[in-house]
């Protein structure tokens, strides 16, 4: 690989009501094969994608929420969630899935993938990226 770029997948939509969340997640997993510096960001209704306890048994939809757990295995371990977006929706970190990744440099210690950031910090993160893909 000649050059590594900073890719951010920015998610602003709730899951299930539209196809954006599922499509975005699939592109992240496909894109992981290209060994770039990948992060995901969740703001606005995108924070609802990460809620735990999603259960589609009564709605006959595909429950893709367990797939977020696989992101660590694809070396997608920087998952930024905007604090203000959670606050507006009455959510806390405890309402979200506990996503982890295994650090091979530290004997595969499990480390949390989700980093809660302020709106200002999120703005700084956007500024740092080479490429932002929006879903």
């Amino acid at each position: 690989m000649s050059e590594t770029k900073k890719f951010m997948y920015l998610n602003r939509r709730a899951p299930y009501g539209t196809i954006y969340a599922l499509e975005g997640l699939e592109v992240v997993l496909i894109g992981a094969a290209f060994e770039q510096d990948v992060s995901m960001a969740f703001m606005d209704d995108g924070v609802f994608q990460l809620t735990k306890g999603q259960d589609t048994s009564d709605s006959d939809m595909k429950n893709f929420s367990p797939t977020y757990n696989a992101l660590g295995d694809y070396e997608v371990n920087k998952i930024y969630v905007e604090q203000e977006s959670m606050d507006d929706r009455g959510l806390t970190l405890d309402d979200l899935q506990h996503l982890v990744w295994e650090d091979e440099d530290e004997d595969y210690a499990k480390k949390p993938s989700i980093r809660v950031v302020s709106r200002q910090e999120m703005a700084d993160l956007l500024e740092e990226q080479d490429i932002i893909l929006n879903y």
Partner: protein
Amino acid sequence: MAMLHTVNKSPFEINSLERCLQMAKSGSSVLLIEDGVYGALDGTVFSAKVKAADGLTTYVLGPDLKTRGLDPAKLIEGIEIIDYDGFVQLVADHDRIQSWL
């Protein structure tokens, strides 16, 4: 004439629920479905507007809540959870349906 209003969009993204609450007359019913179920959550920037709506009976579709992992204990008090059969019954019980998309 009793009207049933349905809302299928998140109140945080588009003003469908806000407009529904403004336009629905006392005695009407409001049913939150799909991403509209987020409007049933308490403790959000939008919940005061739902609580302030006088004379409306508000329902939320249980399967859509469950799909999204929303805890029934976190809903605004007084909102009734219904299933698909309840949805059908509401449609049968009202004269007209207004779908706020």
